């Protein structure tokens, strides 16, 4: 019974350079180790082939070392790896693929499907119809030729594509590289393995996005999986089983703060994160001075215990209460300035004013607390 492992969007060479360098290195490395796990899974499940639906590399200009490292990571599976280029690593005249070939880094079992032509794996019982991107963006459906492409009878027709299924994933995806949603039917495909969408998603029984095996974005979709695809025979409906692959989980935490208990909730949420979590925290609303200090403390704590934490408090206003002010014990002209700051925070003329007042208040409070 033919069986495949469907994956895509490895984005090898992605840097996370805006992160703390210590984390960035680990997260970048995790992308390659994910491939090692994919190889292990493929071997474990004895698949006929691994289908890699594009965006293997994050950019055309990754270093030679990264290229070599990737193909070495695939060594755990001796069967065929069927790889097509995506928009990030399109098969241009001169591309990461040509470079990999020049380097001699590509093992014989890695099939680089750089041209839209049928590849027959008769002994394995399938034929592959690849729709590689040969330009960075294309506005035509590259899978269209599948419809008229003949394959030997009795073999599965497996499509490989990279792009955006029309009308399904309209939002957050540019409309380039469109793919018709009924392509499997029109081209009599048993399965069309797609890449580009970083979460696992079934468009139709024969049309799946596998998502990236190792998340790289703060988007709460089903990222970090690979799909184990079982197809009994040509024409049979595939049975698709998602397998976890990811090492790290990416979280996007957004909270609207208004009462002290809201702060408690956020603090608790932050406390729950651990070493394999990558967190993007976005807080809005307002809090009092102690709440703000607790949040800061919790963020500091979480920053230390997660793989990466980035906090955006730009839309969170700190509004000190009367008690906060009294506790500062500011008198004389200090008191006057504090009162002015509080007034500004209560009714800021602009976001900049509010931020300035907040910063100033924090500074002043720090000194008064000494």
């Amino acid at each position, binding site marked *: 019974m033919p069986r495949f492992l469907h994956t895509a969007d490895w984005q090898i060479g992605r840097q996370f350079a805006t992160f703390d360098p210590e984390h*960035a290195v680990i997260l970048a490395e995790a992308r390659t180790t994910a491939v090692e796990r994919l190889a292990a899974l493929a071997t474990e499940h004895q698949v006929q082939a691994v289908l890699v639906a594009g965006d293997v590399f994050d950019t055309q200009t990754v270093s030679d070392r990264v290229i070599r490292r990737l193909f070495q990571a695939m060594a755990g599976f001796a069967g065929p790896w069927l790889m097509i280029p995506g928009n990030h690593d399109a098969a241009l*005249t001169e591309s990461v693929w040509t470079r990999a070939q020049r380097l001699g880094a590509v093992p014989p079992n890695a099939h680089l499907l750089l041209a839209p032509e049928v590849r027959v794996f008769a002994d394995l019982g399938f034929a592959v119809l690849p729709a590689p991107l040969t330009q960075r963006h294309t506005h035509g459906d590259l899978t269209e030729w599948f419809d008229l492409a003949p394959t030997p009878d009795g073999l599965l027709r497996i499509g490989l594509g990279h792009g955006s299924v029309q009308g399904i994933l309209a939002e957050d995806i540019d409309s380039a590289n469109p793919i018709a949603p009924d392509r499997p039917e029109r081209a009599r495909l048993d399965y069309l393995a797609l890449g580009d969408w970083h979460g696992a998603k079934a468009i139709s029984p024969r049309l799946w996005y596998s998502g990236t095996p190792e998340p790289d974005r703060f988007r709460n979709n089903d990222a970090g999986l690979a799909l184990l695809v079982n197809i009994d025979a040509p024409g049979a409906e595939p049975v698709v089983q998602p397998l976890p692959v990811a090492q790290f989980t990416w979280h996007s935490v957004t909270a609207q703060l208004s009462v002290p208990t809201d702060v408690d909730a956020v603090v608790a949420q932050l406390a729950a994160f651990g070493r394999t979590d990558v967190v993007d925290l976005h807080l809005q609303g307002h809090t009092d001075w102690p709440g703000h200090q607790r949040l800061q403390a919790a963020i500091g704590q979480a920053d230390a215990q997660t793989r990466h934490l980035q906090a955006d408090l730009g839309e969170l206003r700190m509004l000190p209460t009367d008690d906060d002010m009294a506790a500062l014990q500011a008198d*004389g002209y200090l008191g006057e300035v504090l009162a002015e700051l509080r007034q500004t925070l209560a009714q800021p003329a602009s976001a900049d004013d509010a931020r300035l007042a907040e910063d100033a208040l924090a500074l002043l409070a720090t000194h008064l607390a000494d």
Partner: protein
Amino acid sequence: MHITRLRVEQFRQFRQPFELTALEPGLNIITGPNEAGKSTLVRAIRAAFFDRHRSTVVDDLRPWGDSAATPTVELDFQLLGEPAHLVKTFLGKKRCALKLGARSFEGVDAEDHLADLLGFTFAGKGASKTEHWGIPGLLWVEQGTGQVLEVAPARDHLHKALSNHQAPAGADAQDASKGTHVAANLAASRGDAVLDALRAQRGELLSGTGKPRAALLQAMEDVDRLTAELRALDEQMALYSQQVDQLALLRQAHQHDDAAQPWEALKAQLAEAQAVQQALAAQEHQLAQDTARLQQLQQNRDLLQAQLQAHAQAEAALATRQQALAALALRHDEGEALLATARTAAERAQSRSAAARAALQAARAVAQRHSLQAQQTEATATAERLHHALQRATTEHERLSTLRAEAAATAITPAQLDALRQRDRALRDATLQREAVATRLQVDLLPGQHLTLDTHGQVLTLQGQSTHLLDAPATLELPGVGRLSISPGGADLAELARDQAQAEADLAAALNKLGLPNLAAAEARQARHQTQQSELRLAEQALALVAPQGLDALRAALAQAQARVQAATTALQALPPLAEATSDAVSVPDAEALHDTAEQAERRSQQALSQAQSAQAALHSQLAAAQAEIAAAQAALADASHQARHAAAQQQWLSAQTEHAALAARVEQAAGALRAARPDIVAQDIQRLQRSVQQLQQAHQQRRDQIMLLENTLQNAKAAGLGELREQAHGELVRGSQRLSQLQRRADALNWLCQRLDAKRQAALTRLQAPLQQHMQRYLQLLFPGGSVQIDEHLAPGSLTRTRANGALETGDVSALSFGAREQLGLISRFAYADLLQAAGRPTLLMLDDALVHSDDTRLAHMKRVIFDAAQRHQVLLFTCHPALWRDMGVAERALP
């Protein structure tokens, strides 16, 4: 606040209880000599408030030598409208009790309560010090410290006292609100420290003028640098992408060309055009040949035509010549006739001329003979006359010569005679003079006797009688006797002697020259010479009559005349004998006239003949030439070959004419066709197509080169890792920007805070300074009328402006004033503080220990008024050892024992 009673016991020198009672709410003057205990009382009051009753460092309170003493202070006072009683015992029996109205406080509570009300603190450990004393420390002036005004230790307490103030019940509402206002604006208790800290932090990021520095500046520079790096990397990547795209395009184009070979179609067009060009070239060649042939034909035809024309001309010329020949022959015949006539006339004139010449010769011969005969006669007569004249002249001449010789012998000139006469006279004068001077030696010797006179080396033998004039030393030899030496006297004797001798010599020389013996002879010769001269003149006249030209001229004339005679004679003899026939026929002039006429006629006829002969000769020659030419021309025309050539030429001309016309038509047609075919455009077509083909192929080749170059470039490009580098740069930039943003925010906040705090602080200070200054001014007017004082930021008098004696204002720093003046201002400041505190409802008590000892009388008088004024509102305890100075304060002094 005012103290009503003070009691001490076992307190320093007050071993026994001592009590001050019924202290006034205003001024109290406590006097006493040194060591009387004034300062001890002051210390007691301080101890009552400032020192913990439990303090172990107050041994100084104990009387000397009494280690078991329990120093005790007891105070009764009014505090904020309530009666208060404080008892404090130190050391031996530590105790503190305060009753305030109905309330009682014990121990530390009592102390702290008082401290809170009065505004001071206790030392945490050890002795109480200035910095703990707060407001009382400011208002209580210790001995000798009036000039020191340190507000700082009191500052917090001032603030607290004033800001915590609640308007006391029943107090004036306006005062209360004013007090609150003042209090609320007093400087923050920790403000300056916080502000300093914030400034320091601001200084870490911003310069004094607000420019970024240190970490902030570094962050900015980092961001700039990273931005530039990122841009560079982006450009590099863009270039890479662009080159990749270019490579794709080039390969596509190259493959397309390889497949389509677009230059082949052009090559076909080119071949076609080249064929057309070749055909046109052939046409052109034919045309050129035809044109050349046409030109040859034309030349040929022209030559033939010239030949025919020459023949016609020759025939016409022959006819003309024959006509001319006939005319010439006619003229020749006429010339012959004329020549004959001329010849006849010439012969006649010749014969006539010969006859005339013969007649002339005959006439001339007769005339010559006659002339010669006349000449011979005249010459003979002349010769005869001249011969006679010569004879006479010769005679005369000889006589004259004789006379002249005689005259010459006697010749003497009058000048010579005069000279002789003069010299003779000079000699006589000299002789006379010498004789007159010279020593006269008259000798009269007996005869026979002689003397020898030796003078001038000349020895004279004197005899007889003689006189000698001695003009020189002389020796007279007297024979037998001896010698006499005579030396003539007189100075010029010698000179006179020389003059005489000279004159004598001169005369002698002149005479000698003339050959005369003396002057008389000369006179005689002159007379004779004059006679001879007269005779000579007569003889000369006689000779001139005969031969006026001289003798030689006469002789020459004679010779001439004789020669003429001879010549005439010879000529006559040479003449031919006279012909008889021709005698007397014609005269010579007539014959000459006839001869001339005949000769002229002959010359004219000869000329006419000569002209006729040359004219005739020319005609003859012309005639002969014309005849020869005609003969030649006729012969040429009549030549058979010439005739044949002429006929052939006529034939050829006709055929050439025909052929030329045909060929010309053909050439014109061919040229027209060629023009219509536009070979230039065809050539352009070929050029254009050739270039197009070349360009297409070249482009193809270039593209292939470009592809190889690009492939090479891309493979060698640093594409590997560029993406990572770019991501890293981007990450660094994002992180750098975050850091910059954080630092900038911090800097902005610090900057804002510092500015606002500064402004607020300044405003608070200003608000606080104003009432303080107002109070101070009130007292200052008493001390320095018209003066004013400025409060500095430490709330102490900073500078003073006052009127000088001359009325001018002067301003100066208070610290520069004299000790006395500073003390005066220090007291005034304290009074002002007291007023301020009182206005805020705070308790006030002023203590002056031995104050103003350095003030002069005038100032002291002023200060007394100040103190008196202050004492109207505050209790003032004034301790002094100079009671006399304070007797005018209107209060009774309290003298210590």
